[in-house]
């Protein structure tokens, strides 16, 4: 049985002017010790999905359908008090911007021990010792001297380590990392990704890594789902996805990544157009307006994820691209691999 099983998750935002269809029926499973990448451009619904799983959507957002099974419980039907017990204890989350995700007026020791008090009912002495151990675990030098420091006394990379320490404080079974390296320098990115990979290997956590950066996914995730306009358009083991992309959007993403091994004359090929307006959810493939392979059928009937070539490779496309179309693309520089 998978650790986490999401089925047909649907999230909408209700504003005075319009309803935004942010997530439109995504399904995936996460096993213990597995790393799953969710890739897509800004606004495709990747962050919203993770907030919905934890039940911390902003006020305007509501889950309008689907199930999120954690063990034998559906997180979407749990009361907030029960969900609060799971958040932080069983499922931890790391956010994008470490500069703003830590409370600026609280000492970091206090922010970490708060989680330990809440979920593990530790006494002060144990909590402080555990907090030091956690900070050491995430690679913060002189951990015991830094408990009394405020967030602004840490660099961006160090703050992200503190965030990770908070998220893993109770040894959660699942860690959701939402663009954990986007706000960091490239050198620090690799360190943080290594840290996350190490945690998955040693603690046997399931990791959901949300990013727009294909290089990050390439280095860390076994399996990758490509998200577009609130749906998964392609899902496959990462290597397969990079070497044999089948969805035109995946191909477009891979082509727009700069590569070190390309000749200088070679130009990046951007995906034309802009992501669709999520206030109107029409029939047909959402990517059709930007897709060179689109046909009338693409514009009329919404494709669903179906097996292609291999049981582990799913694509939602009426006209999947072939290896010949994809031949011009090589795997991007794998930043996360050390």
């Amino acid at each position, binding site marked *: 049985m998978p650790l986490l099983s999401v089925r047909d998750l649907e999230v909408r935002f209700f504003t005075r002017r319009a309803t935004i269809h942010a997530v439109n029926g995504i399904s995936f499973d996460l096993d213990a010790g597995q790393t799953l990448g969710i890739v897509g451009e800004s606004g495709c619904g990747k962050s919203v999905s993770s907030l919905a799983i*934890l039940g911390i959507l902003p006020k305007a957002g509501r889950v309008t359908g689907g199930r999120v099974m954690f063990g034998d419980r559906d997180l979407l039907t749990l009361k907030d008090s029960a969900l609060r017990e799971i958040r*932080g204890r069983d499922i931890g989350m790391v956010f994008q911007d470490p500069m703003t995700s830590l409370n600026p*007026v609280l000492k970091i020791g206090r922010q970490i021990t*708060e*989680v330990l008090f809440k979920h593990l009912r530790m006494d002060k002495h144990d909590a402080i010792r555990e907090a030091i151990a956690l900070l050491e675990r995430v690679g913060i*030098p002189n951990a015991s001297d830094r408990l009394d420091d405020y967030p602004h006394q840490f660099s961006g990379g160090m703050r992200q380590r503190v965030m990770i320490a908070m998220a893993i404080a109770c040894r959660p079974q699942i860690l959701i990392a939402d663009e954990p390296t986007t706000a960091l320098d490239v050198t620090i990115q690799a360190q943080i990704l290594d840290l996350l990979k190490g945690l998955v290997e040693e603690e046997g956590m399931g990791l959901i890594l949300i990013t727009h950066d294909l290089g990050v996914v390439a280095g860390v995730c076994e399996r990758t789902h490509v998200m577009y306009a609130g749906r998964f358009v392609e899902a496959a083991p990462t290597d397969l996805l990079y070497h044999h992309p089948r969805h035109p959007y995946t191909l477009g993403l891979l082509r727009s990544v700069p590569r070190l091994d390309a000749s200088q004359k070679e130009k990046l090929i951007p995906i034309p157009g802009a992501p669709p307006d999520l206030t109107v959810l029409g029939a047909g493939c959402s990517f059709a307006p930007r897709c060179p392979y689109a046909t009338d059928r693409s514009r009329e009937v919404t494709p669903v994820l179906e097996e292609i070539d291999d049981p582990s490779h799913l694509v939602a496309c009426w006209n999947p691209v072939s290896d010949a179309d994809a031949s011009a693309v090589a795997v991007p520089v794998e930043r996360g691999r050390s």
Partner: protein
Amino acid sequence: MSIAEAQAAELSLERPSGLWRDAFDRFRRNPAALVGVSLVLIFTIAAIFAPQIAPHPPNQQVGPLSTNPAGPGGGHVMGLDEQGRDLFSRLLYGARLSLLVGIVSVGIGLAIGLVFGALAGYVGGWVDTVVMRVMDLMLSIPSLLVAIGLVTLLGRGMVQIMFAVGVTTVPIFARLLRGSILGQREADYVLAARSVGVPGRRLLLGHILPNSIAPVIVQATLTMATAIIEVAGLSFLGLGPGDPSLPEWGKIMADNANRLESAAHLVLFPGFAIVLTTIGINLIGDGLREAIDPKLKS
């Protein structure tokens, strides 16, 4: 040594500093704020040590009864009043009243205002609408008028005045805190705290409030100056304490308003006292604002 380690080492060499400490450092380097602190300090010392400093008790007759009391000189630095009492001594004791009035009325206003502001900002929805419309209603009536109404309702007296003035400051604090909380409620660190299961009440009291309180503290200081003026004003209008022996600054001015030509010192000296105290408090408030305003933070 990796870059991260180097950065960490460099950081740990710095003097330990916190948010409030940085603010204090900025405050300390602001000359205007220091002038304010000195002024307020002088008045505070005067208030605390009034019995030691004052040459006479505030209500002791030390000179002749006179409709044309003597001005400064003759052993009385600020002159005498119509009952032959030493004005300087009376003003020293009056400092106690004025500072007390400032602190108590702002305290009342803060206590009520913070509760309403936190409710409106954090709970939102209809609670927000109801609370804020009531606050708007209070703000739409001039605060002096509200205070006069309340004093009329509750009766004359020092306590009543402090309460009345305190109530008029409630909407200021409520609105300020609500706005500040609204700005923080959706902040990333709040989301992060929710993601580790911090419950609602702790979220508000432990995370959101400490980040929203700074502008309220600044405003409280500034409001304290206004409160002192308003209480003096109410006294001046004859709504002050009925007891003629109380050396309240505004009351002394009111009692002697018709002697401005013959004995100007009886109006001018308490006037100066009020002006200097409020200027001092205002300078501190402005200094605090500059020291902790997030927009001015580097």
